[in-house]
């Protein structure tokens, strides 16, 4: 009986020992993705969430993240939190993430969330007077120009619209010299669209020698575009540059079709090169040219798109930035030599190390090539020009 009892006790102890060591080996590092998962921009969040999950799976398949002590930690993507594209909710979400063990947040989707959100972060590191959050954010979608400079804790891996539209207008000037004039169509009440026309497209068109004839404005919720289309008709531009999201872009294009307004060329907003536009107005978007920092043009890009599709997401310039972010973070964590420990002081120390590593990063590996990092913590990413063809976005030209 004693022998049996001893054997059972030994087996029990062995089991405990094994499970104990298994627990000890299961070190983790957490990243926290967030953005929009409700309302009209829900698809953005779903795609980013899928891309982050898929990329984290790949990181873990390859062994996880190497910690300072040489051990490996599993990367965990926390539940994707919804900020509803609302600044206050975005701030609440990040404060919640800050209270968790996550080392970094990946998001947000909307520029009108990113701008105030960066504002609650500490402006300059080591500024003892500044009580802002000391927490790194690596943005994947919010694309409005020049936001990352707000805080030294904010980083973005979004394409530079200034570079892309400059290149697009230059290419058009070279290949289509007969086009002389540009007219704008802008969703005036949406931060990204507004900035894209007034700061980027208009300026870049002018800089490339185009005569900008003016602009028509509408609002994000507008449904009637008859007046704007008549204005476009009156201006009779060679190129119509639309800085608007899919719903109103499609509304405008359909009204143009009704009124028989056909500019020689239509340029669209980066965010419009998505599945949404092709669901809502594939026929009308035929031929529209958009610069995009993603297209499945090589093995890596195709692989990322396939893995994201397995997680029920679709690959576009935004979701693939989320994918890239996971690998950027893995590399930065390893370079920073984070401890992976879970006490509050270690978590904060790891966050700081990660921030510093991100700030020191000069280039990252992107899906279309090398992404350069700028001094103000923005990305300079490779891009292609896509156009609507047969109900999908097809690469028209690769300028790089």
């Amino acid at each position, binding site marked *: 009986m004693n022998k049996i009892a001893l054997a059972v006790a030994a087996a029990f102890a062995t089991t405990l020992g094994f499970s104990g060591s298994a627990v000890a080996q299961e070190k983790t590092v957490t990243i926290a993705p967030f953005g929009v998962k*409700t*309302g*009209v*921009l*829900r*698809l*953005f969040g*779903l795609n980013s969430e899928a891309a982050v999950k898929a990329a984290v799976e790949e990181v873990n398949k390859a062994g996880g993240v190497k910690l300072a002590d040489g051990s490996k930690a599993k990367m965990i993507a926390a539940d994707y939190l919804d900020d509803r594209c609302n600044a206050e909710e975005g701030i609440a979400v990040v404060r919640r993430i800050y209270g968790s063990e996550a080392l970094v947040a990946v998001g947000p989707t909307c520029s009108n969330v990113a701008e105030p959100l960066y504002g609650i972060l500490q402006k300059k590191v080591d500024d003892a007077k500044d009580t802002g959050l000391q927490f790194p954010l690596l943005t994947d979608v919010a694309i409005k120009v020049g936001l990352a400079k707000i805080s030294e804790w904010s980083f973005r891996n979004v394409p530079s619209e200034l570079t892309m539209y400059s290149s697009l207008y230059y290419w058009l000037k070279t290949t289509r010299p007969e086009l002389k004039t540009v007219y704008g169509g802008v969703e*005036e*009440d949406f931060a990204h669209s507004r900035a894209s026309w007034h700061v980027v497209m208009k300026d870049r068109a002018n800089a490339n020698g185009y005569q900008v004839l003016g602009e028509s*404005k*509408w*609002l*994000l*919720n*507008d*449904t*009637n575009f*008859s*007046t704007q289309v*008549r204005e476009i008709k*009156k201006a009779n531009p060679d190129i119509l540059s639309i800085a608007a999201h*899919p*719903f109103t872009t*499609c*509304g405008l294009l*359909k*009204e143009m*079709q*009704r*009124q028989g307004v056909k500019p020689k060329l239509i340029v669209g907003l980066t965010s419009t090169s998505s*599945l*949404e536009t092709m*669901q*809502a*107005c*594939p026929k009308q978007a035929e031929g529209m040219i958009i610069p995009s920092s993603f297209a499945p043009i090589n093995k890596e890009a195709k692989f990322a798109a396939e893995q994201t599709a397995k997680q029920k997401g679709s690959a576009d310039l935004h979701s693939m930035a989320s994918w890239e972010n996971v690998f950027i973070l893995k590399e930065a964590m390893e370079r920073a030599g984070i401890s992976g420990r879970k006490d509050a002081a270690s978590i904060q120390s790891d966050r700081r190390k990660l921030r510093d590593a991100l700030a020191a990063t000069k280039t990252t590996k992107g899906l279309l090539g090398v992404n350069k990092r700028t001094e103000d913590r923005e990305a300079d990413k490779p891009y292609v020009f896509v156009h609507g063809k047969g109900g999908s976005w097809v690469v028209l030209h690769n300028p790089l």
Partner: protein
Amino acid sequence: MFDFLQAVLDGILFGTTYSLIGIGFTLVFGVMHKINMAYAAASIGAAYLGLVTASVFKASSAWAVFGYSFVSGGVLGYFVYLICFHLIPLKNENATLMSTVGMLLLTDELISHATTGAPQNYPATLEDVMVRAGGLSVRGDLILVFCVSVACTAALLLLLYRTRLGLATRAVAQQPIAAQLCGIRVAQVNALTFVITGLLGGIAGALICSAVGSLSILLTGPLTVKGLIVTVIGGLGSVPGAIVAGLLVGGLENAFQHFRGVTERDMYVMLLLFAFLIFRPGGIFAKGRGRD
């Protein structure tokens, strides 16, 4: 001047979509003295269900989608009645109002989840028809919406004044207790009112999505606001008032946009609403007070 006339004409025609929604709001208010805030959202919901049902049955024509939307609207109308007005005590004014606000948000989110928030291509009618007269042009599909609005009004007036159901509805609207004492089933009349407005909402939602060219939850908020404005300006409970007010709001909206730009447009529409509330609170077609 010509541009201004064309802009106003475009607005008037587009105002027919506001009229269609306003009719639904006003009918429920006329019968039950309640505001159904979920009406516009349910109408877009019905339009979406119509689109889905048509794709299930592989019927791609716009008319098939409209037919399915019409039926879906009736079902949704009854559902809204059941949840927001039948299960919640009618005596509690705020509870029914808030429940319809809740239903508006719920419907919005359900459409958002079903469509992943992406706008859906909606089949168009009379897409390429443009009626031109004296240099002015009018969209054929909006003329259709206008005709449907007028036809719906005529049908509703016939129903209200030429049928036993209409008599019962008017009795319930004027004196619910007396109507009950006369043997009229008040709950049944109320439910039928919701089904009828729901059927109308289904066709309204489908026509609006067709006129806009796509279905999106971005439509529900503005349509709810415009529907309410139209109902107040037209006169709470007045079906012809809703039509006239819809056209008026649509026309003035474009006139304001023409002179002051898109960013100030809605401000003036709201000022118009306040002007009516202050100087003519009963709306264009102010009704005389009933016995109660």
